[in-house]
């Protein structure tokens, strides 16, 4: 056994910004780990990788990744990413953000990015609440869950993110938990190689903020829930992909081919003026 | 051609009559095809069709500072509503060119020259009501003499959809001839 050594994935991280800000038991680090593992396995060109994030705990992931990265305003990561991807289609643009950022304040951008089929890849850390601002109710908070703004229990129905992504037109839709590290890594690899808009939801523990109000005080307890309740149902109907204490349906739900927006646009430009295709 | 310092023209009617287009054709004829300065401004409501609409043109041999019409020398009007709104703001000794079929209620006016040009009816006879504004434009050119006929025809060609040149130029000539006859009588 060797004590002090360098982690093989550390070259994908910005040394100056590590350690990250995430709490003990938080799943964000697992997601970042699986993401850079996928990048490593694919031997991706880091010079062509752009990681974009919004606001929230997971929003810091962009800064931790040793590629070009941009930390946008709250909810606008996908709109920013759309501009970057269109401006330079050679870039691999990945959005890593949270459920609040992508589906509350950024919900409109999400459905339109999916509809347009812009070739941006999205990893959403779903922790069921607003962690960074102290645990308020969000668009994925389960019914009856306790948060700092639902002290009597949540009475709003949560979004089913995979159903929403599929209905909006995403060409790849999957859901995993932070316990499904190998499946998640495989899924990220698959997504990174696809054309068009892709979406992976990762159910992630937030023990300090969400868990402790909902009888799961540690990351381990939340991961235990994932282990106990998870059922892999690949290519099942995403509208029936429930998330409950008893059952947590995960898997790949959509994997189709569709011409991406940027490819469509550039084909259009070539058709309009075959002589002028240069940029 | 008269040498002009500053002439103000107001085209008015409702949305869908081609009022704005008339102003643009007139101003373009002046500045691109007649070596004069011209500017067109417009005012319209939120409706695409049927709302009050005006298009104003200032033509001058000199540089145009203020581009809006203050007291028009010429009012070309194609709706009752616009007539009621603008008829009393025409400059003393100015000219009103109106479509009588669109304006059933006419007022008694002092000190202005009024010409009746049934442009909508003429356009309907051509089976193309849409060119009523161009008929009116023909009449405007004949009556006012501010612009050269050929310059306006060039401007029409440059500002209408391709393939409609013949129809529009025909409409223009109809209006021009009608007004020439008016002037004779």
């Amino acid at each position, binding site marked *: 056994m060797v004590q002090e050594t360098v982690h093989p994935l550390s070259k994908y991280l910005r040394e100056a910004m590590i350690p990250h800000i995430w709490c003990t038991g938080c799943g964000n680090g697992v997601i970042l780990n699986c993401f850079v593992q996928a990048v490593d396995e694919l031997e991706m060109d880091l*010079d062509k990788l*752009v990681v974009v994030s919004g606001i929230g705990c997971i929003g810091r992931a962009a800064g931790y990744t040793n590629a070009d990265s941009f930390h946008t305003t709250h909810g606008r990561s996908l709109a920013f990413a759309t*501009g970057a991807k*269109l401006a330079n289609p050679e870039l691999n643009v990945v959005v890593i953000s949270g459920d609040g950022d992508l589906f509350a304040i950024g919900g409109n951008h999400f459905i339109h990015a999916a509809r347009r089929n812009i070739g941006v890849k999205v990893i959403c850390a779903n922790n069921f609440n607003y962690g960074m601002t102290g645990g308020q109710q969000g668009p994925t908070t389960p019914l009856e869950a306790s948060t700092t703004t639902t002290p009597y229990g949540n009475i709003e129905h949560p979004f089913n993110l995979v159903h929403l992504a599929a209905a909006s037109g995403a060409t790849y839709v999957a859901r995993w938990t932070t316990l499904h590290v190998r499946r998640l890594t495989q899924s990220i690899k698959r997504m990174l190689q696809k054309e068009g808009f892709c979406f992976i939801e990762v159910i992630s523990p937030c023990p300090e903020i969400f868990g402790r109000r909902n009888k799961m005080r540690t990351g381990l307890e939340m991961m235990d829930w994932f282990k106990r309740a998870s059922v892999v149902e690949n290519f099942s109907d995403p509208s029936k992909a429930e998330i409950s204490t008893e059952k947590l349906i995960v898997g790949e739900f959509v994997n189709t081919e569709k011409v991406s927006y940027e490819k469509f646009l550039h084909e259009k430009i070539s058709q*309009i*003026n075959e002589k002028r295709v240069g940029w | 051609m008269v040498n002009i310092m500053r002439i103000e023209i107001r085209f008015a009617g409702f949305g869908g009559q081609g009022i704005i287009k008339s102003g643009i054709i007139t101003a373009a004829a002046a500045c691109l095809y007649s070596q004069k300065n011209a500017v067109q401004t417009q005012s319209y409501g939120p409706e695409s069709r049927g709302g009050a609409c005006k298009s104003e043109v200032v033509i001058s041999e000199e540089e145009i500072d203020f581009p809006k019409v203050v007291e028009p020398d010429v009012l070309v009007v194609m709706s009752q509503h616009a007539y009621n709104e603008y008829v009393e703001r025409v400059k003393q000794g100015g000219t009103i060119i109106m479509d009588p079929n669109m304006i059933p209620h006419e007022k008694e006016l002092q000190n202005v020259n009024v010409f009746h040009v049934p442009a909508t009816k003429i356009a309907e006879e051509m089976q193309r009501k849409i060119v009523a504004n161009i008929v009116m434009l023909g009449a405007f050119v004949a009556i006012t003499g501010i612009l050269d006929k050929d310059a306006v025809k060039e401007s029409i060609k440059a500002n209408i959809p391709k393939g409609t040149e013949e129809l529009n130029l025909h409409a223009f000539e109809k209006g021009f001839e009608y007004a020439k006859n008016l002037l004779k009588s």
Partner: protein
Amino acid sequence: MSKKGVLLTGAHFMNGDIACAEGAIVAGCRFFAGYPITPATEIAEHLSERMPEIGRIYIQMEDEIASIAAVIGASYAGLKAMTATSGPGFSLMQENIGLAIMTETPCVIVDIMRGGPSTGQPTMPGQQDVMQARWGSHGDYEIIALAPSSVQEMFDLTIDAFNLAETYRVPTLLLADEIVAHMWEKIVIPTAEKIRIVNRKKPNVSPEEYLPFMPDDLVPPMACFGEGYRFHATGLTHDEHGYPKTSSSEVQERLVKRLCEKIRRNEDKIMRVEEVMLDDADVVVVAYGIVARAALSAVRKAREMGIKAGLLRLITLWPFPQNHVAKIAGSAKRIIVPEMNCGQLVREVERAAKETSVVFLSKLGEEPHTPMEILEAIRRNS
């Protein structure tokens, strides 16, 4: 469909919106993202046809928030980028204008002012966004805003806006009004050699040595995505590496002050005014946009009547040309400020004019001030 080149040299008859779009094309704008709104829509419509035919990008986003976000993304991916809107959309853009300020993103935002507040008067002119342009986003910053008075200036100043945006890495505003935007007038597009184009300053050090927010003469050279520099940018307070330093008063002071200083210390190079008959003027009208044309007419009429009137037309609204105003305040007896609002830029004029009395002429609604209204004010105050 037309197949035109980039530069349409020659005389044209076009409206202000189209002239602005053509100016953007000439300036090197390769990315336009927008959302339809009266009276700026013609810019988007025209670019939706023109951009693809010259191999450039046009996209209609889902709203104005997304439009400016996409513009920032495209600018960071290396392209000159623009969006165009009007009051309600401009309000929505304020958040990301702040992001563009903070991340020093070169971009151009066109705001065609209509009557507000709220949806107000969609098809009517206004000058009510002048203070929003200056202070609309939260926090402290300096911004550049140009106010065209003619169709020709819609073209010329759009090019200038791009040049300023790229020079200072700052979002630059073209603050026009509905009349100038919808007005049709002759413009002359010059030949290529007569047009000055500024491109952004790129780093000349290796990626290892590159600090993305280390200023070189107040403005940091800009690497873009995909160029191998692997930099980070954030809307958070950041150090020269671009890394968040949200708890440091020192970093906050250094960054925000520099963001202001890079404009303030270059004011003389940025500010532009037009001076008409100011030398001996007793009464000076300070105006901008469409109102400046009524003012010019009024000043000429006043001179014909023997009144010593002059016009200071502001082309740059922000940074506010206070030295120019201070100078006329030293010689003139009265300053008249006509604006299509309830009093916005007049307060800046008052501040710069110090002892000299300033008369404000407000007008709202459909029409700008007529020359006669301004002339009347000149007569009363001469």
